[in-house]
């Protein structure tokens, strides 16, 4: 095991904010559950993103005040949301036509593991007693134009999440374009992981040490 030290990296909010900077104006964006959802809080000045939620809404707006939600206006995480002016409702087959047909510009997902080829594992530990559940993740990674992962660089027990090849069951192959962690922004390229940007105060060697595959500069 690689010896781990706690590094002072980006907070989850900072990771989400950093990712939001890279989204062009006018993008159609699908945000996964968890940290990915935080991206919506950090839309840069002057840009508009239109959020797609796979359960049938384009133009998803913020969650309403607690207790004022409509149980029939929810997002993919089953939370109450709102619809912006210019929103549209549609059924599930049309919604996944948007996804599979390459109409969504960007999808942001959490990850258990990402391989240096861009394979993603984020739906199952493969444990024999787990209840398997996949939702729309496999469709999203297969269809969306760009797929970004936002995740802690390592697991709670210090294992690298960026690996040579995934040991957990795959969600998709060669599907991840970029990874935003608490320590760095990393592209998945034809030749493996490549550093885009370090979190201020974090050294390249520290990131490499916590990455389960070679990290190119």
């Amino acid at each position, binding site marked *: 095991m690689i010896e781990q030290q706690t590094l002072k990296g980006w907070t989850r909010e900072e990771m989400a904010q950093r990712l939001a900077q890279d989204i062009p104006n006018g993008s159609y964006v699908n945000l996964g559950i968890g940290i990915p959802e935080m991206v919506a809080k950090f839309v840069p000045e002057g840009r508009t993103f239109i959020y797609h*939620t*796979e*359960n*049938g*809404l384009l133009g998803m707006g913020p969650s309403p005040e607690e207790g004022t939600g*409509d*149980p*029939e*206006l*929810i*997002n993919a995480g*089953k939370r109450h949301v709102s*619809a912006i002016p210019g929103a549209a*409702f*549609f*059924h*599930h*087959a049309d*919604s*996944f036509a948007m*996804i*599979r047909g390459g109409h969504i510009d960007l999808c942001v997902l959490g990850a258990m593991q990402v391989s240096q080829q861009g*394979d993603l594992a984020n739906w*199952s530990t493969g444990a024999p*007693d787990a*209840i*398997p*559940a*996949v*939702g*729309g*993740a*496999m*469709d999203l990674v*297969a*269809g969306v134009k760009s797929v970004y992962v936002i995740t802690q660089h390592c697991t709670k027990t210090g294992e690298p999440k960026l690996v040579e090849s995934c040991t957990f*069951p*795959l*969600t*998709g*192959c060669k599907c991840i374009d970029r990874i935003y962690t608490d320590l760095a922004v990393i592209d998945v390229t034809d030749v493996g992981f490549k550093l885009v940007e370090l979190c201020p105060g974090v050294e390249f060697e520290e990131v490499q040490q916590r990455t389960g595959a070679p990290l190119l500069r």
Partner: protein
Amino acid sequence: MINKQLSSPAEAVADVFDGATIMVSGFGEAGSPIELIHALIDQGATDLTIVSNNTGSGEVGLAALLKAGRVSKVICSFPRTANSTVFPELYRSGKTTLELVPQGTLAERIRAGGAGIPAFYTPAAVGTPLAEGKESRQFDGRDYILEHGLTADFALIKGKAADTYGNVIYNKTARNFGPPMAMAAKNSIVQVSSVVEPGGIDPEIIVTPGIFVDRVVEVANPVHESELVSAGVTYP
């Protein structure tokens, strides 16, 4: 004279038979036809195959149908729910089997079943455990797997309003699987908050044309699953 309206959920599900395949609309609680499901529990049909995105919550609706031991198989994309131990127990004990399908593939298989498409190719799940045993093929250098259309004997669907010809509109994200399921089932049964005369819904805004709908039943004030679960209600 055409009138597809029936008097009650009980009448609407009266002929569901043991061993039937039933599509059930809904994504989480949105669009879940609770009253139709409860009528089906009362009706007693068993050994059912359920096609639905989730497996219900608490011990009402779909979870209650499972709890009652009526479901031998679930075809589903996300059978893990925050507030239910029903499906996990049935699954672990082997009493209910699971066919896990990616959500978009599930939606497309249902639409294909309704549209007379026996099979199609999709890129979703390629290279994953869910592609195991499936035919694969390249088009333009990319890998795809073959998936088959899904049909059902019955569909239980929640809409917002319908006319007596069976034309249906939905409410917000409660639309979800309703329209493709209405297409794919031999007997599509829709509960709505209000039933109107033909002409009562603008023909430009109809989401599910009446040709896909066999029975309509009015449930003026449908319950919300989350409220029942919060209140600790169990059915029956």
